[in-house]
């Protein structure tokens, strides 16, 4: 892959990958850091990379690896530069959904309820949260998630199932009460 191919990849998948970073870190500044680091890390492996179908998965797997390495450093940064939760200040751009069912439901889900869902996802432990983000935000399949995380497909299914149960319990209380 050339630098030009990398730039095209950023153009094509930048929004997807940046969204993953925001959901993963829950922090705008750290998401920006992680987003840059993913592509800078990729630069070191350009010769081995192919601009093909699995490239988005490849970048997401770099993101997961980098994030796991960063977590300990963040423990220090938190002490001195507190986290900014992403839901507070961000300008969101709404995007039309292709899925008609989702589009109809979307009209009935208020921004506040979406917020509840996002907050609930953010509260999940990381081993459950990452498969949920990859599955729902980035629309990765179970086999793709398994490859990204380096775990068996059965484990991905089980984590998604556990996450859904926990989210269901959390959301039944918070959304339906409103």
């Amino acid at each position, binding site marked *: 892959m050339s*630098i030009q191919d990398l730039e095209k990849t950023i153009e094509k998948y930048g*929004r997807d990958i940046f969204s993953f970073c925001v*959901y993963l870190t829950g922090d705008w500044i750290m998401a920006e850091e992680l987003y840059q680091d993913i592509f800078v890390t990729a630069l070191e492996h350009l010769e081995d990379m192919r601009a093909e179908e699995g490239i988005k998965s490849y970048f997401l797997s770099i993101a997961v690896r980098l994030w796991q390495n960063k977590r*300990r*450093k963040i423990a220090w940064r*938190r002490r001195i*530069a507190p986290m*900014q*939760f992403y839901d507070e200040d961000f300008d969101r751009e709404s995007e039309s959904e292709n899925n008609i069912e989702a589009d109809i439901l979307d009209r009935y889900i208020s921004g506040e309820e979406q917020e509840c869902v996002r907050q609930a996802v953010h509260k999940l432990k990381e081993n459950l949260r990452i498969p949920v983000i990859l599955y729902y935000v980035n629309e990765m399949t179970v086999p793709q998630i398994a490859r990204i995380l380096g775990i068996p497909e059965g484990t991905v299914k089980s984590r998604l199932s556990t996450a859904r149960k926990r*989210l269901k319990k959390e959301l039944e209380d918070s959304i339906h009460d409103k």
Partner: protein
Amino acid sequence: MTNKDIDTLLHVSLKPDYTPSDDLNQRLQERIHNGNDTAVLYHFHGSQRDKKKKSKAAFVRFKRVAAIACVLIFAFGSVGVAGGKIKYMVGLKNLFRSSNYNEIERVVDQVGFEAHVPDCLSEDYVFDEICIEEVADEDDNGRLYDNRDVIRVFYKSKSGEPSISLEISGEDETLKYDTIPKEMKEENERRRNSGYTHSREIDGLEVEYFSDTFLFVPNDYEPTEEEESLDETDPNFYISYGGDQDPYYSHGQTIVFVLDGITYEMQVFDSWMSEDEFYEMSEQLITYIMSEK
């Protein structure tokens, strides 16, 4: 709510709707076209957003410095300074970050004090990253004092041990305040006598070692009565706000010394390193600094 409902709700609510800003894309382009130069200059949306939740998360750091200094602050009171009473040391911005060791000269120029940063702390710990962070003291009215830049350097372990953070401040943080509230004197004394705080003299410098327990919690966490009581009464226990996960405990080891008015503070979390090993590392650091002067 059925399983299908929750699945649909997640599909609808979780969208990739965060777009990298033009500024971020510009910075990324610069990094890509500058080869191995991995320095990051932070461009914040404005200092106000950084100040929103600063207070509690910064608490731990200040409390520890207070204890080291035999001066200051907290749990039971605060120190009077011109204009108010200092309550927190807060982080305002990350100004710079680089994984290139050659950036150190630039960092030292930027902060304006003569810091000496080795490329390793021992055979196992090697340079990983250097940052500049802007910090300040905040009084009980929310006013900020003494904005200053500190250097933070991370060293990673070749053998997989947790990273070490080395923070360098251009001030002698331990002599910052000239008022010593009685309550803090007493707390500091308790801490010193707790068995988890020791000091040794190395090359004529007093080097202090702290072994502390941290409970990392989210910003909205309500501590239990027991935790609150521990935070107030146990000089080696800290509740640290700002986490994004369930509460978890961490064991922190800290070494602090002041050399030529510059405060050096090394810290590691959840390491198997012994107190003696940590002291040996600080001795190597002191030897390095002396040789560079």
